[in-house]
C-alpha cells in the first residue's frame, strides 16, 4: 500500500487480556515508531526501531508493553494484562533513512479496555 497501515482499527478488550497491534510501514522505510495518543495527553513516544540497531525502548510505560519488528518491516506492539489506563489510540509511523526525513503516520488503533 501507499501509506502506513495499522490493524485492527478498533479493539475492545477485557481488562487483564493481552492484545497485539500490528503496523505495516511504508516499503523501504527503515525507521518505525510507536506512539500513544490519549485525550489531552498529546503523543507519547513508546518505542523506535531504526534498521538493525537496537530499538529505543525508553518510552515504554511498563514491562507489560513490548514490541518487535520482524524482517525490518512489520511491527507488532503487544500489551499484556491490559489495564483501563491503557485505553488510547496507538499510532505507528515510519520514515526513510537519512539525516533529515519526515515520519508518515498510520490511522491508528483505538484500544478500549473494559
Amino acid at each position, binding site marked *: 500500500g501507499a501509506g502506513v497501515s495499522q490493524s485492527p482499527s478498533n479493539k475492545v478488550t477485557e481488562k487483564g487480556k493481552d492484545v497485539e497491534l500490528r503496523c505495516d510501514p511504508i516499503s523501504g522505510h527503515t*525507521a518505525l*515508531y510507536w*506512539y500513544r495518543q490519549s485525550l489531552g*495527553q*498529546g*503523543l507519547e*513516544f513508546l518505542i*523506535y526501531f*531504526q*534498521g538493525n*540497531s537496537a530499538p*529505543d525502548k525508553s*518510552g515504554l510505560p511498563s514491562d507489560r508493553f513490548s514490541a518487535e519488528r520482524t524482517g525490518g518491516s512489520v511491527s507488532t506492539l503487544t500489551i499484556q494484562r491490559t489495564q483501563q489506563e491503557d485505553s488510547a489510540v496507538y*499510532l505507528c*509511523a515510519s520514515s526513510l*533513512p*537519512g*539525516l*533529515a526525513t*519526515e*515520519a*508518515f*503516520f*498510520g*490511522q*491508528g488503533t483505538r484500544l478500549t479496555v473494559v
Partner: protein
Amino acid sequence: AQSVSQHNHHVILSEAASLELGCNYSYGGTVNLFWYVQYPGQHLQLLLKYFSGDPLVKGIKGFEAEFIKSKFSFNLRKPSVQWSDTAEYFCAVNKRGNTGKLIFGQGTTLQVKP
C-alpha cells in the same frame, strides 16, 4: 532529555483572524523541526518541516513557521485562518541523524468559528 513545549492548549479564533502557535524545544544539538496537523477523524499529516537553510519555512495551506535558534523556538503562523483549519496541531523535534526519535509537544486544539 529532549522535550517540546506548546504554550497554547486550546485556541479559538474567528475566520480571517491571524494565528500564531508557540513551540519551544529543549535540545542543544542540531535538530529537525516539524509541525503536524490532525484534522477531525483523520490521521496525522505533515504541515511543514525545517531541516536546514532558510529559517522561515512555508508549508501547505498557507502556513509558515520560523525557526529562531537563539530562542529554541519554531512558532507556527497563518495570516488568515479558515473554518477548515479547525484541527489539532503538534510541534515535533528530532535529533539530526539516523538515531533521532521524534518527540512531540502536547498539541494545540484550534477551533475556528465561521
